[in-house]
């Protein structure tokens, strides 16, 4: 029997080698959490059972769901089935949970919506208009959330048009659990049985939180534990705020007490956030730079003309095609020289000195928290090269080896990274040698790595 006579449908991919996509990973992990009690409708699973899924059954199943999880990847809005699902959910008032892939930006969303408008032309049907409204709302939610995440302190309830819309979740390989928790949290919210916090990572509110079993056990163990942190005052104010916010949230999630100070005490863990220079703001240099890396980019040079400073959006900056900016970079525009306002970690000499001091401390002192910023998709190899130039190869290797200490640009994920670091202190206290997870990891690597691989690592 063929069910495709009247409506378009996806047909029998029984023999198609369906690749394991991120969505399937998400599906599997959600099924691990909920087991057979959690009913998830996924087209490929249904296709295996019934052989075909038509657009009518898609609509019906959307309406029969408690919530629709939109996995927003690039070109999502260009797929007709996705448009149908999105529109149906919006029209039926089904809550939409958005899990956003890293490739989605304001530019891609605008482009996809524009493509839809162009394809439909001026003679849009009512259905198309509804689709467009749903698309626009989706875009607003993503951009609003991104804005909030980057500004850190905006109220969570400001997200989206409807007050019940949950925050957009980010799909990151290292922080899959955060997204999973966020999905379940919003699902509970949809049902209105559980009034959980609207922040995907738990937030700082006193509301109920979702914790995995191992996190719950750790929370019980570390209840009441105290950790003192030192955050250098040489960080730009927004970076300081970023660190403090993330650690305070992590503190609440883990149930421990964290004190953060800007003067280093003997028992403090130094927090080092290695971040790249930012090209979003440029300042006029009062002198001709004696050293540093001169940039040559005619378009950018032109853009800086006639001004003492200039601020760009992220997309404008990307459009210049300069993928990585060293802390000592400068560019000539007319007769003037400009340099980045935020020179990054390795462009700030005080922070470089702090790193050298921290890594040179004796074993019995608290281990530093080395965090490696991946914001603005910084070029890792260039970042490392800059670090090697400033710290020397040996120290740079020590700093850059623990790649698992990533510090994502999204604030909810930063909280998780901070939690990881605070958890490490709990393990450290159980370790007789007093060596932190980070340093222990480094030493283990030194023991197993070939000699040439880690030259100069002590």
């Amino acid at each position, binding site marked *: 029997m*063929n069910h*495709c*006579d009247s409506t*378009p449908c*996806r047909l029998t991919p029984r023999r198609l080698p*369906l690749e394991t*996509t991120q*969505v399937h990973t998400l599906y599997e*992990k959600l099924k691990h*959490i*909920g*087991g057979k*009690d*959690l*009913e*998830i*409708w996924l087209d490929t699973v*249904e296709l295996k059972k*019934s*052989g075909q899924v038509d657009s009518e*059954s898609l609509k019906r*199943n*959307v309406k*029969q*769901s*408690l*919530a*629709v*999880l*939109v*996995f927003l*990847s690039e*070109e999502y809005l260009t*797929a*007709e089935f*996705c448009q149908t*699902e*999105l529109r149906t*959910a919006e029209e039926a008032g*089904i809550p939409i*949970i958005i899990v956003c892939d890293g490739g989605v930006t304001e530019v891609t969303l605008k482009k996809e919506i524009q493509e839809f408008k162009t394809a439909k032309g001026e003679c849009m049907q009512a259905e198309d208009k509804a689709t467009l409204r749903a698309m626009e709302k989706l875009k607003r939610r993503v951009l609003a959330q991104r804005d909030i995440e980057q500004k850190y302190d905006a109220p969570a309830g400001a997200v989206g048009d409807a007050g019940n819309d949950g925050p957009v979740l980010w799909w990151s390989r290292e922080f899959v659990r955060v997204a999973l*928790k966020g999905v*379940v949290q919003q*699902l*509970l919210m949809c*049902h209105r*049985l559980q009034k*959980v916090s609207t922040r995907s990572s738990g937030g700082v509110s*006193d509301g*109920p*939180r*979702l*914790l*995995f*079993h*191992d996190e*719950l056990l750790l*929370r*019980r163990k570390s209840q009441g534990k105290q950790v003192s942190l030192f955050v250098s005052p040489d960080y730009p104010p927004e970076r300081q705020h970023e660190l403090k916010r993330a650690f305070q949230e992590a503190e609440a999630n883990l*149930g421990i007490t964290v004190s953060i100070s800007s003067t280093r005490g003997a028992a403090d863990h130094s927090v080092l956030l290695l971040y790249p220079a930012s090209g979003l703001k440029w300042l006029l240099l009062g002198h001709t730079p004696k050293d540093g890396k001169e940039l040559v980019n005619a378009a950018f040079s032109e853009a800086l003309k006639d001004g003492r400073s200039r601020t760009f959006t992220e997309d404008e900056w990307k459009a210049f095609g300069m993928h990585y900016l060293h802390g000592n970079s400068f560019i000539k525009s007319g007769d003037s020289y400009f340099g980045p306002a935020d020179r990054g970690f390795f462009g700030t000499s005080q922070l470089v000195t702090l790193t050298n001091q921290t890594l040179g401390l004796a074993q019995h002192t608290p281990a530093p928290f080395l965090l490696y910023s991946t914001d603005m998709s910084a070029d890792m190899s260039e970042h490392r090269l800059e670090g090697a130039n400033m710290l020397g190869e040996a120290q740079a290797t020590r700093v850059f080896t623990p790649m698992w200490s990533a510090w994502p640009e999204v604030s909810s994920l930063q909280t998780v990274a901070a939690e990881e670091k605070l958890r490490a202190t709990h393990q450290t206290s159980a370790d007789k040698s007093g060596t932190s997870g980070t340093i222990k990891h480094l030493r283990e690597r030194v023991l197993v790595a070939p000699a040439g691989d880690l030259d100069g690592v002590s």
Partner: protein
Amino acid sequence: MVPFLFAVAPLPALLIIIALVAMAYKNKDREGKMGTDTSVVSLGLNLLAYLLVGLGIASHTVAVPFVHVSDESGEVSEDECIARWIAVVASSALVFFGITLRVGEEMAAEERAIVQRAIIQRPRRRLAYVAAAFLNFLAVIVSSVAVLIFTENSPAMVVNGSETEVVMVDDYFQELDLRVTLRVTRCRSTAELTSEQSWGVYAPWVLMHLLGLVVHCERMRRGLRISRYPTLFTLLLHSVVAIVMMKETKPDAQMFIVRTPIGIALGWFTLLSEVVWPRYQRYVRRQPNNDTLFVVRKDDPGGEEVSFASLLNGSEKAHHLFISYKWKTSYDKVHSLEPL
């Protein structure tokens, strides 16, 4: 027939208790999902399946040894031979019937879920499984009737024998042929069956094993629930034992000392694979692991496990989540297809 009835009489009560305990645990596991009509049907069929398997286990471990005890006396009546045969055949048949019925019920549950989601129903395959279960049961009946017919016309074998013994007679050892007439009766061995009788007895039996295995293989292919491989091993073990016993034509194979250990081993193994192992698996699955999520409130740091089942209770919704995404493969782009 009396000893057979005597042996089987207390078993149903015992097995009903075991099955009820098992189902009560299952009921607890299902949380709020009981109470709908389909769940009651499902519960009943599951109970029946467990009951049949339980009867098979009990028959293997209790009835088979019990009816073979008279083997020691050297005198076996016709009724006892019938009881022995039925006990041996029925033990395996009940296990196979129960397992097949459980597969059918799993299929039904799956189809009910599909119907709930308004996707195409496929009743034929389920009917095939029901038919398989019925044929399975029919095999036992036919086999038992066949054995009743042939034993009614030819009573248990009378065994006479003579032995050569070396004995001391007048200070000399002499080899004497001692001929003693024994009044010993035994049940027929398979070698003593005629061709028609063998077909009548073993064809349904073989069919039963084949059907059981085919149905279970289908169950494994569809990935239905747990206990797939232990069950397959149980079925294979029953089949291997059946083949060995068919091939073993000597009368000794029908004796207490052979049948009892085999029956007990089959019974216990079936109990482990069909009852204990699935319960244990369920118990393990119910234990919190790193994927278990808890809602932790400020006033209750202990946390409460997230209950997904309760979210759909009393709701018209069929799913918690509908995942909307764009396929990575190019097949997604071919969204409008010509009718086949």
